[in-house]
């Protein structure tokens, strides 16, 4: 009995199995279905195994911050830009300019190289076709369409305190209203009257909208495309005033234990080889490398979209203020 207990204790205390010399530990906010095939492709190509944990962006940053003195991850790969802005402020990532860094457009990377965009993302309106038909409505094609009383209690979208999608929405509205913050918040207060609930995760409204619990869901493009792929009868539209183009990035963790292997992996991120995988694996985002191939479905969708470039530096400085304002002016009753 005692021996069995001792053995059990040893097994439990066993740390992460002795690291192969070249192993990369990754924290990602992308769903496993999207991230794992990409990591596997790298392992297949180089023989370097990648261990990863999937966490929501906020959890990821909180976890990496708590581990700051003894980092467990080498790379943060696939998380929205606001998460990286927070990670930079928390001092948990360090600058690294990958081999292909120069080719990435200015608005898609941190000027000091703390983080760089893996892909470009945006949001759209996803409407339940059946419910729209019941009410004789056309899918919304303008931010102002959403203020129609017919949508009262029928819109779900993300909570700005938890979700990068919500920040994309706030930014989209800000840029769509010509960077007039007063107008933008005035609009959001009106929109609030039609919102059924603010979900905690960005994609949280997708299934409710697909199941008819809400008519419209304002969400990121990949969520909408996944829902359509699954067979839900959803209509995707863009507001004609435009939507903000946001980034999904990659960064090197400060004090990474497998620094060299990690930087090689980041280099690979900005090769055509990896950027084409976004298309092949149906990630439904736009590549950031100019020569990366674009998924046909995304390309078709993008024809209707007016992408508004985002000033990363301005967002980094104003994010907290925008969210606070949203809390204190939009949702306060």
């Amino acid at each position, binding site marked *: 009995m005692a021996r069995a207990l001792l053995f059990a204790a040893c097994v439990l205390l066993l740390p992460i199995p002795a690291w192969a010399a070249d192993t990369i530990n990754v924290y990602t906010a992308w769903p496993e279905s999207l991230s794992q095939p990409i990591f596997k492709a790298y392992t297949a190509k180089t023989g370097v195994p990648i261990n990863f944990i999937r966490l*929501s962006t906020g959890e990821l940053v909180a976890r990496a911050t708590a581990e700051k003195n003894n980092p*467990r991850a080498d790379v943060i790969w696939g998380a929205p830009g606001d998460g990286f802005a927070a990670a930079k402020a928390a001092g948990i990532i360090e600058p690294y300019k990958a081999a292909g860094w120069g080719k990435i457009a200015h608005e898609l990377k941190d000027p000091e190289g703390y983080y760089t965009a893996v892909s470009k993302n945006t949001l759209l309106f996803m409407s339940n076709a059946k419910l729209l038909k019941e009410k004789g409505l056309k899918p919304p094609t303008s931010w102002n369409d959403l203020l129609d009383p017919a949508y009262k209690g029928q819109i779900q979208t993300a909570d700005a305190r938890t979700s990068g999608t919500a920040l994309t929405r706030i930014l989209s509205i800000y840029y769509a209203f010509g960077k007039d913050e007063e107008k933008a918040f005035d609009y959001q207060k009106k929109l609030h009257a039609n919102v059924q609930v603010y979900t905690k995760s960005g994609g949280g409204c997708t299934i409710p909208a697909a199941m008819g619990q809400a008519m419209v869901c304002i969400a990121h493009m990949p969520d909408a495309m996944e829902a359509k792929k699954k*067979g839900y009868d959803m209509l995707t539209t863009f507001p004609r005033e435009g939507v903000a183009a946001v980034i999904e990035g990659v960064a090197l963790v400060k004090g990474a234990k497998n620094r060299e292997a990690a930087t090689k992996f980041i280099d690979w991120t900005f090769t055509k080889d990896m950027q084409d995988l976004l298309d092949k694996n149906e990630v439904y985002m736009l590549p950031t490398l100019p020569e990366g191939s674009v998924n046909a479905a995304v390309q078709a969708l993008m024809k209707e979209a007016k992408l508004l470039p985002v000033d990363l530096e301005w967002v980094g400085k104003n994010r907290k203020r925008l969210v606070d304002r949203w809390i204190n002016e939009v949702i306060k009753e």
Partner: protein
Amino acid sequence: MSPAPAPVSSPRAALRDPVLAPVVVLLWAAVALFVLYPVTRLLALMFWDDGPTLAAVVELVGSWQHRRALWNSLALAGLVGAAGTALGFAFALLAVRANLPRWVGTVLDTIVLLPLISPPFTAAIALIFALGPRGLISYHVFGIAGLNIYGLGGTLLSETLTYFPIAYLTLKGVLANIDPTLEDGGFSLGARRWRVFRTITVPLAVPGIANSFLLLTAASLADFATPLILGGTKFPVLPTQAFLQITGLYDMRGGAALSFLLLVPALAVFVAQRWWTERRSVITVTGKAGAATRVRSLSPGAVAALVLVCALTVLLVLTFYLLIVFASMVRALGADNSFSSAHYAHVFSGGLKAIRDTLVIAAVCMPVGGLFAVVLGYVVARTRFPGRRALEFAAMINYALPGTIVGIAYLVAFNDPPLALTGTAFILVICYVFRYSLAGTRATTALLAQVDPSIEEASASLGARRDVTFRRIVLPLIRPALLAGMTVLFIRAMTAISATIFLVSLSWSLVTVRILEGITNLELGQASAFSVMVILLVYAAVVLSSLIMRRLNAGSLGQAGTLLGG
């Protein structure tokens, strides 16, 4: 404070006790290392930012949403405590006092356990699909469109349905321990049923009622998953605010401050419960045999009312879970309702490791945590060891704090050498043991409150050492509590997520993390299939442990040993 029921020794004698003293030292050491130390690290983080700071507290007091969250949390917890205890009491009465056929009890136990053993988020999401604007029950059965379930109503309903089984399990054990001959005494003195119920049954059940109220209130105060999905922005509560502060606003300091604010009501509930249960003697297990009599404390009308309430609850719960089973067996719920085994195929290929890891961790948690719980409960209820209250108090801190905070505190405390436990399974086990043993401790103190200490005194006066008395007298008497404690631990280890999301590692994964992943990843089918697997596994374990217990327990405590059915 009035003395505990005739403790066996004085404080001075307790200190010299050769068995008790080392045990208490060990308990204190464990609690200090795995509860107080991480919490202290977090407090340091909160009040230290290159120098002492009160910024977090200042911000806390100034924010309207945090103030509202505090009141909402208190109101919700009180309501859940009351509603859940009432519902649990109804189920317990029906199970042990209504003379229903045995199989009804078994069926009740089986279904009632469902909400308790399902992973978080699952119940809340099932509630949306059952009672939402286009819900199965609300819209398709009753034709009500546009029902708003986000806010207090939905959160209260979901939490009550999730937590009332705790009340049921606690109260069933307590009611079963009340000797029906006491009620018979009332009847033969000419009292009517209501009077007997009011003056005998209910007062004897008070420790159980107070316990279950405490457990439910505390569970609701700490629950973040349900309000996260159902609270919306209209009904902020503290645990979700703390979570949002950390993961949404990247403000660990503010989140920690909010969490410590939560400790205040949690500890108040704890003190109130203490005061309430110690005021009266509720000893019913005296070693003197009571005659087996037919229970007749409920009128046929009362039984019918109870059956109605319980049947409706069971029906609602069943609907939720049939929805989940259905979602796990179709291609894509709502879009393509044709049968598909793809989700289970995924569970048995890619998901197998997570299931195995979770089982290993749960299996280790059960004996460790169960023993910790009953020993702690015994020390608190039956000895006069100085500082035992403080010990009990300290041991419940991890339970009262929101999981997010416990997870982060553990990460901060145990990431660096010499205590670099992150990345091992050990940290997960420790987290569960010190977070979820409270149920076992509570069950132990509640049961011991019903057991006359003279039984132990007899053993002691016959010369048995304290450990012998504990093993041969106390342990058999509190087996139901041990069983309940271990079962709750297993259930939590299989279903908890809020703390462990920060502690899972590359080599140790958990099923609940896969479920959360499925939900955030629009893989409703996969999430449902994992949920069904968790529920089946927990059922299997519950049945098994109750069978083993019954064997061990043969004849010793009668039906009280069958806390979990059968």
